[in-house]
């Protein structure tokens, strides 16, 4: 022991504390940016705080701060990492043993410990929406877990404002999972009218994922639009940029297609196709991207613009054209442009509608020939509609030859021909040797197996 008295020792300690405070304040004093992100730093703060602001490393810069998350990290002292690892293992175990309540709680605990670990948000969001949902049997339960996964991702976007990929994922899930899964028929309805009537009565949607009660593809469009806005600030990672920015336009395409498949052929749907065309051509097409060797290009590019961009990039016109052409092909730009252009055409709508109505008539067994008052044989309603449909389809393919190879059109047309053949068969008549779309049917004979399969599916499950 030393010779200092108790008071002297205390004074020494106090002096030591003050000495230590000087570098701490110099380095670590907070800045006003730490409190309110985005404001100019009235209080410049310590060196570390200034660097944090300079390099966007502040917690508040990354996204909303969750007090419970911060509390948990503090309570665990330095054991946050091991605790998160243990929780990951437990989450896997709960999932394997189908203990869903505990899985969700554990996942929530993990993200409280690691709120800015973007891959965890992506992985668990996917896990809940795709893996856990399919473990459940009833459609409404699956829907619930898809929502849980999306809500989880949405929370991830609020906690991680700089993670543009998360915004893209939310848009992707909103569109793809609800609109393209096995359960899409129900999911799309439930997206507007949630099946949990206790929590969402009177045919309302779950406001957390669909606050405006609109179509899932339109919500996806909003999220992709946000993604593109974020992308300008924090560039999206691990995705080809020219593909990543297609989101809003493709959501509008999917919206129009889905509505059409559900039997909506009015002006509203033509307008949807028109919107998709505009979004693709005017917005997406006019975005500036960086191609090979950082050569700037845009997809919707006139010859003059090509020349101007070549000058700006300092490359030859051929090099500029090559980069442009490569990317136009890569994203199939012209095809999508032509498709929307074709689909907003009244004749196309009429062709789709005739075939659709024909299928409805077929499913209602309106397939038998009848006799009019004069005893003449009248073809059934279904036959009339399919005949009209394939005639219009033939005209369409002539009008838009660039779409004659489009799988969806070919299969729709061949399926209509197949329905027509079946109707002839039921009525004991031979199918005529000459019929509209014959050349297509001959050329694409190899697809008939798939067409027959589609016919069986539609008839077994009911068309609508």
């Amino acid at each position, binding site marked *: 022991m030393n010779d200092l008295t108790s008071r002297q020792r205390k004074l020494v300690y106090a002096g030591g504390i003050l000495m230590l405070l000087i570098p701490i304040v110099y380095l670590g004093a907070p800045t006003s940016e730490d409190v309110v992100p985005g404001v100019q730093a009235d209080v410049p703060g310590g060196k570390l705080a200034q660097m944090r602001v300079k390099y966007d490393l502040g917690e508040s810069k990354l996204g909303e701060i969750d007090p419970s998350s911060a*509390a948990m990290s503090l309570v665990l002292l330095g054991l946050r990492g091991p605790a998160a690892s243990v929780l990951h293992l437990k989450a896997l175990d709960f999932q*394997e043993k189908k203990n869903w309540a505990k899985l969700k*709680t554990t996942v929530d605990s993990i993200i409280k410990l690691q709120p800015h670990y973007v891959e965890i948000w992506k992985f668990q969001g996917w896990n809940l929406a795709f893996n856990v949902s399919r473990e*459940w049997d009833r459609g409404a*339960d699956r829907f619930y877990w898809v929502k849980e996964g999306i809500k989880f991702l949405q929370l991830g976007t609020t906690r991680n404002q700089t993670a543009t990929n998360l915004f893209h994922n939310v848009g992707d899930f909103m569109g793809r999972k609800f609109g393209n899964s096995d359960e899409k028929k129900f999911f799309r309805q439930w997206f507007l009218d949630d099946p949990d009537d206790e929590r969402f009565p009177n045919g309302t949607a779950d406001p957390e994922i669909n606050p405006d009660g609109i179509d899932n593809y339109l919500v996806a469009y909003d999220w992709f639009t946000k993604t593109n806005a974020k992308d300008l600030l924090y560039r999206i990672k691990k995705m080809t940029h020219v593909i990543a920015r297609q989101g809003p336009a493709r959501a509008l395409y999917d919206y129009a297609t889905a509505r059409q498949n559900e039997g909506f052929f009015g002006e509203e749907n033509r307008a949807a196709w028109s919107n998709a065309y505009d979004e693709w051509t005017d917005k997406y097409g006019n975005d500036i991207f960086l191609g090979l060797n950082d050569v700037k290009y845009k997809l919707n590019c006139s010859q003059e613009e090509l020349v101007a961009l070549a000058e700006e990039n300092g490359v030859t016109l051929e090099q500029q054209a090559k980069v442009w052409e490569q990317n136009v092909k890569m994203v199939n730009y012209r095809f999508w442009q032509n498709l929307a252009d074709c689909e907003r055409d009244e004749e196309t709508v009429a062709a789709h509608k005739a075939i659709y109505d024909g299928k409805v008539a077929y499913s209602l067994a309106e397939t038998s020939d009848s006799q009019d008052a004069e005893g003449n044989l009248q073809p059934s309603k279904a036959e009339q509609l399919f005949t009209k449909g394939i005639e219009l389809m033939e005209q369409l393919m002539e009008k838009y030859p660039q779409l004659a190879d489009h799988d969806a059109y070919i299969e729709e047309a061949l399926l209509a021909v197949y329905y027509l053949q079946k109707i002839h068969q039921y009525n004991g008549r031979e199918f005529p040797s000459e019929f509209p779309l014959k050349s297509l049917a001959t050329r694409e004979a190899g697809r008939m197996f798939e067409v027959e399969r589609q016919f069986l599916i539609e008839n077994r499950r009911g068309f609508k």
Partner: protein
Amino acid sequence: MDFNPTAFDVEAGLKSWLALVGILAGVALAIGLLGSFLSAGAGGAVVFASGLTSYVKELLSVSPRRIFALASLTVKEAIRRKALLVFVVFAILLMFGGWFLTDSNDRADLQVSVHITFMLTIISWLILPIAIFLSCWGIPEDIRIRSLHTVVTKPARRVEVVIGRMLGFSAMAISILLLMGIVGYVWIQRQIPDQVTGANANTRNLLTCRVPVYGTMFFLDRQGLPKTSGLNVGDPWMYRSFVEGNSRSRAVWLFTDVAPDKLGDSLRVESRFEAFRTVKGSDESMTQGLEAQYTLVNNAREDAFSSFGVGAGFREAAESLRSGNFENAAALLNSAAERMLTSPSDFPYVDCQQVAIACELQVVPTLRKVGDFPAVADAFEAFGKAAQQVTADSSDGYSGLSTACATLATVLEENAAELFQKMPKIEVPLEPFRVAEFHEGDDYHEYPRKLTYAGDYEATARFLAKVVSGLNDQGKLLDGSDLAATLVDDLAAAGIAEVNAELVEQVLQEEIKAEHLTAEDGRLTVADGGRWLTFFNNLVREERLISQDPAGWMLEADLFDDLVTSDGVLRLEVACLDDQMYLGMARPDLFIRLKDNMFLTGYSKALLNIGLMLSLVIVLGVTASCVVKGPVSFFFTLTIFVIGQFFHEFMLKLLSGEEEGAGMVESAMMMFQHRNPSVGADISEGKRQVMEAVDNSFLGMLNAASNIIPDFSTFSSAAAYIENGFDVPWSSSVLPAIATYVGFLVPCVLIGAACLKFRELEAK
């Protein structure tokens, strides 16, 4: 939820406990004797005997009053050491716990288990450190500050000090536990949303304790043959196995001791099955789920003959036996007897062994239980033994088997009508339902005691035979030599629809006319002297009694009188009705639900288990502190707890071989050699033997450790029950916890008292 409750076997537990304590006592005495010789030389034996006598006397003169005084002193000391500060931490956790829990699941029902888990976890994990600290530091601190010196000068025995310490600390821990438990109970009630507490109208109270009665379970495959497990659909979690939809595949549960005094006047069944689809399915099944159906079965023939056809050679005969067509079975066995001599390869060795096992374990015991067919039972027994004689290498056994088979066929033929009469099959299919899957408690169904069902051929024949023969016995069937004019009314009074009653009257009239029935002395008899059951069975199978009522032959069965066997067994079969779909189930997935207990009941039992766990930790801590100092004792107890809580099951898996891998030395060697367990270490045979010997000795040590270290997961199992809305079962959770506690308490008290008695208190 994946628990599989199995009742604790008290007798087996007691036996193994006595054996273990005996071995430990022997080792302790040997060490004591050796120590005596080492310290006292040749007089060691006398010293040992004197010490032992004194120790035993001390044990026998324990005073509850002194123990109580020491225990209360311990409590005061614990309070002085600010043990109650734990409540501050508890309060903080409760205040902020809601932050972490409320939003975790949108669905209120999923929140229930989360809140209960949270509460029970924080209660046990907050008190645990206090229990370890207090118990491990108590006695060493007394020795250090010499307060124990004062105590031992009083007329207080050292064993009383040990028990007093254990009791005092346990009382302290349990008081804290009780207070926390009460606060926790109120917190759970307040935190859990109204929609699951039953506070709102039309909502089910999930905060309750269901009381299940579990049965035993087996499966029937798609051919209806019994199997221990169903199909594997590729789920890595092998807990459930699956039955195929739209096939003969079934999951069968057998419940014992089913009686009205236990169940009341209804059958309440709850299940939680898992669905597996190979195709998307119809819109209806997608929105509502797969369809399942229960069938209550009382089928003596199934009980007797279900395994008889496991071997393909005897399958046809087994099918006839199961369907009650004993004459046909006899014919098939006769044919088989001939073929056994001419074409023995039709009855391979494996089939013969399987049929021998079926006869020994199933057919003969069941027939003897039915009791009326000693000759048939003997014939099956002889047949089974003959089948057992068939060997893989020689065809000598087939002649004996052929003889036994022919004898069996003869006996069966002679007793066919009687067997059919006495071995009924009653199958009552219940209303199909949609499987709720993972919605705990949604698949709950209550069935009345009297069950109405559409009878199959056999049930219809049995019912009509019973009604008509009853009327015949009462003399109501005939009026002179003609059928009574009131017959239709009498049949209707027995529960037969009027149109069907008229049909029965008409058919009986035709049969009298055809002289298949004869009227004598005001009674009707079957012309060939046959039984009414056989008579009606033939009529039904000839389809002459097809129901005129569109609902079919609606029959009534009494749950306890008709469906439960004489020894109280109820058989419930579960089928999946959807084609190309599968339902997965495990034994605890279906149970008979008795009257629910209050949530408080299960919660209290869970707290009791936590209390026992804390008390056991204290017992271990105090015992360790009698030998070593506080810090060592602390780490010792903590280690024992951690191993017992988290690694006990792993130890047992290692010992049973369930956990794959090599021994310690072999594993180390393989790591060094970069080899995997499937090829093993690259060493000579001699070295391998040495290595295995060393590894076995480690395994022996592990075996000893697994017996000495308590399995703390026994105590935490109670929480899993109430988290999932079940009452904590006495036999599979509370009793094992009590037994574990008492099992360790007794030897620990003895060891602690001995160590404290024979140690030098001045050695700080």
